């Protein structure tokens, strides 16, 4: 639920830094709903795979903010936050009405030489129905400038110029937030059509015949509509920004602004940051056999000297040496990667540094990335391969064929640790934006501190102070224990608030096993103890986990007390994680949630090698939709944008966001920090392989 303030800067930079190569093919454009289409109508087009867009559009008193993502070549989804101002100008009601909606679109047919692209879409498929509609749309391109679209809409898109109800009448909406499947494609259907003409790479003209009568808005005097025809002009500025101005129905004027990001294309053109040190070549063994003598291992001060030299070289890249162990032919170094976003690059830099530091007799480099004090994998590189492949074409593929990635194993008994790393105090003060809606939330400052007591044992906490907020204060009427819906009270009374104060212990209970125990003030609303065990073999796409928590609900004042709520509960989940390949990750959690409800969460994420991540989740529990509230059940979309993608510089931080169409107390989990799966997967073969090429970066 958080957005570091840098998202804004990232987006601003994203638009500023992109140089404008023209889009060669005519990919789909976005409409006022932030979805692929014409002006107000959808089209049969899709965006290019993995396109992510953020749209803000204004139509009279209606504002729509939409996040859309082309999840695969054919499937795309949107999350929209819509507000109607002056809602009560002619009919009673609140001054401002707002609605959140989720769309899904599937391109059934791709455009062929003679056949059009055909898309089926569900607009606002779960919410209370102000925006609910379904459609089939076909789009055909003629030449490289003209596109013609025709379609049939139901629901809102069937409200003007209807031709009858081919699939029966549309039942009234059941306002529980569950998918309105019984409504889909029911009721009056109406045709719509439109054309799109591309004048040049920057300018596009659009015209359409709309089947949306704006019934609700018309009745409330918000929108006047004389004709079903809409016209407009759009201006594309570089690949990342697009503006639109439209005339709707002869009487209304609309504006659109889209930010279009492609996770697969870096605004900076590539990873910046210093070039690596060249690999240091050893003398040929025949020429200098003495250099290969292993006698150095008996030198008393060899270990501390080597470790110090290595640490100095790696500090340049933000890599800390946890410990070092060696014999005459093999070295094992355990590293903590603090800055480089790609694990493979951190491994490559470490291998290069080892080539400079280790005596020539050492042929095998074992590099063990350490996360939260525990080793998560062991990457074994032969030094002669490193030397031989440095300047060979396709060296990343060739090196990967010769490298093994295996179980980290225990820390060798004779390992030399670094007395400067434990115990160690760290702190930070950072500006933070916490968003609940695409443009609603608060900004503030977070003071965080951590004390690394020993490898795997860390005491940490954070305090948050709000600076400004545009959240709508709300009061919870939930019939369930208010495990989440009192967030308004927590924001209001707890400022500043102690967000977290925990003692966490990470360990490796066995081969392929990882564990975590976190004790203390786990999050804003709940405190207690949380334990987790994860089974994840290094080269397995499958991981299994178990988590058990006992928590008490905290006071809203952000302090240490528990007097306000008399609520404690044992929650827990069994989880399965699966990497389907090509960046699609799935997760299933089954268990008991914070309000005592029992159920399951399914989530699917598309993860890009560069750290971008876009996903959706849904939780169904035994809480009835009525008790859950407007949204019916917990669901939402989430997204992570790495700073490195936008800025190119070495940086492991990222912006993370989660949007829900409505929150409730059902299906809620404790927000404990440092759950095991993601940071461990990063250094397993499924995390290292997609961007393995960066090993030579």
């Amino acid at each position, binding site marked *: 639920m958080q957005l570091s*303030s*840098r998202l*804004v*800067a990232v987006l*601003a*930079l994203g638009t*500023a*830094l992109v140089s404008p190569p023209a889009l060669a093919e005519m990919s789909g454009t976005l409409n006022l709903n932030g979805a692929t289409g014409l002006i107000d109508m959808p089209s049969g087009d899709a965006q290019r795979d993995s396109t992510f867009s953020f749209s803000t559009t204004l139509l009279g008193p209606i504002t729509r903010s939409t996040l859309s993502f082309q999840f695969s070549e054919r499937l795309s989804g949107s999350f929209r936050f819509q507000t109607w101002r002056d809602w009560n100008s002619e009919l009673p009601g609140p001054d401002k009405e707002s609605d959140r909606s989720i769309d899904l679109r599937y391109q059934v047919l791709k455009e062929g030489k003679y056949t059009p692209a055909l898309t089926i879409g569900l607009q606002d498929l779960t919410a209370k129905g102000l925006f609910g509609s379904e459609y089939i749309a076909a789009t055909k391109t003629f030449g490289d400038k003209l596109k013609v679209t025709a379609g049939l809409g139901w629901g809102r898109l069937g409200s003007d110029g209807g031709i009858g109800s081919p699939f029966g009448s549309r039942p009234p909406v059941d306002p529980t937030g569950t998918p309105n499947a019984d409504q889909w494609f029911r009721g009056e259907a109406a045709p719509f059509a439109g054309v799109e003409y591309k004048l040049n790479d920057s300018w596009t003209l659009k015209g359409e015949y709309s089947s949306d009568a704006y019934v609700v808005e018309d009745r409330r005097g918000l929108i006047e509509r004389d004709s079903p025809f809409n016209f407009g002009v759009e201006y594309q500025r570089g690949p990342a920004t697009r503006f639109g101005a439209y005339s709707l129905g002869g009487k209304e004027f609309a504006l659109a602004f889209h930010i279009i990001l*492609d*996770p*697969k*294309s870096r605004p*900076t*053109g*590539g*990873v*910046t940051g*210093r*070039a690596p040190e*060249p690999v240091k*070549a050893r003398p040929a063994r025949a020429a200098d056999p003495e250099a290969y003598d292993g006698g150095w291992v008996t030198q008393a001060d060899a270990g501390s000297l080597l470790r110090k030299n290595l640490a100095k070289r790696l500090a340049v890249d933000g890599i800390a040496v946890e410990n070092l162990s060696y014999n005459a032919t093999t070295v094992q170094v355990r590293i903590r990667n*603090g*800055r480089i976003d*790609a694990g493979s690059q951190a491994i490559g830099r470490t291998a290069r540094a080892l080539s400079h530091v280790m005596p020539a007799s050492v042929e095998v480099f074992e590099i063990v990335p350490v996360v939260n004090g525990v080793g998560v994998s062991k990457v074994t590189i032969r030094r002669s391969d490193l030397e031989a492949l440095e*300047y060979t*074409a*396709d060296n*990343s593929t060739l090196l990967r064929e010769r490298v093994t990635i295996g179980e980290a194993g225990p820390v060798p008994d004779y390992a030399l640790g670094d007395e400067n790393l434990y115990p160690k*105090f*760290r*702190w*930070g*003060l*950072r*500006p933070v*934006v916490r968003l609940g809606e695409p*443009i*609603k939330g*608060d*900004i503030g400052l977070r003071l965080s501190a951590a004390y690394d007591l020993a490898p795997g044992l860390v005491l940490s906490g954070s305090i948050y102070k709000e*600076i*400004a907020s*545009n959240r709508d204060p709300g009061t919870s009427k939930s019939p369930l224990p208010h495990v989440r819906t009192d967030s308004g009270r927590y924001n209001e009374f707890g400022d500043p608030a102690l967000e977290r104060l925990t003692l966490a212990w990470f360990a490796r209970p066995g081969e392929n096993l990882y564990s975590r125990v976190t004790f203390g003030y786990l999050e804003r609303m709940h405190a207690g103890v949380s334990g987790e065990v994860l089974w994840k073999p290094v080269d397995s796409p499958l991981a299994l986990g178990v988590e058990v928590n006992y928590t008490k609900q905290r006071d809203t004042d952000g302090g240490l007390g528990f007097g306000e709520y008399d609520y404690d509960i044992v929650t827990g989940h069994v989880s399965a994680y699966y990497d389907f390949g090509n960046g699609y990750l799935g997760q299933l959690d089954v268990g008991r949630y914070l309000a005592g409800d029992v159920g399951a969460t399914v989530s699917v994420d598309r993860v*890009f*090698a560069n750290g*971008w991540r876009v996903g959706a989740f849904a939780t169904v529990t035994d809480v009835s939709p009525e008790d859950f509230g407007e949204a019916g059940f917990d669901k939402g979309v989430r997204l992570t944008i790495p*700073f490195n993608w*936008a*800025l*190119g*510089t070495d*940086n*492991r*931080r990222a912006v993370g966001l989660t949007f829900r169409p409505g929150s409730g107390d059902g299906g809620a989990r404790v927000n404990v920090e440092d759950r095991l799966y993601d940071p461990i997967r990063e250094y397993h073969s499924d995390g290292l392989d*997609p*961007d*393995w*090429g960066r090993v*030579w*970066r």
Partner: protein
Amino acid sequence: MKLLVAGLALALLGACGSDKTGSSPVMSAVGSFAKDSLAKVSPGKKAAATGAAKGGKGTDPSKRRAELEKAGKPVLRVSSKAMGLASFVKIADAKGPVLTWATPDGATFSQRNGVLIQTRGLGGDLMSATGPSVAQLMQPGQKYTRIYYFLGGDDQGVKRTYDCVTTIAGPDRIEILGRAHATTHVVETCARSGVKVKNDFWIEGSRIRQSREWVSSGIGHIEFARVVD
């Protein structure tokens, strides 16, 4: 909107803490962006700052050459107008036929027998490549393949295979920092499904004295001239 503005202001203020591993990325990006645009506007200034690379106005080329030769080490001139790059660089690594040249601000260029095969630290880097030998370049009309490897924007490896052929443009007398060289100008044309890449080489005897070589779609061409052997 207010929230966005405040957020942007905060972002620019950056963060602070004991953790020095992640400086203020926004500030550094803004800094490098500003630097880049400055360099683009006035390449002359940048050139002056990095040691009057082109031996530009106000500097006597032969005097500059004498300074460079004094060190007794090989020097390569690397320049790209589009990138605002103009630098005299030294050898950072030599392994057989491969020489790696490093700029003071942390970019490297690796050449095998004078043909560019890798870059680092430029952004859209050439991660690795096959390249022709000088003998191959001097055989006009004879076809050969060249493979370039990049990292895509999503950090996945990208492989581009080109069919190449050279033509000899003719003898060309070129001047590099006040010294004349009698060279043969060879043009290498590489094509891949409608995309063409052109590289120019000025070959003196059996070695490449000067070249203008394509790096990647993001970087474009970079010019290299061997000033001091």
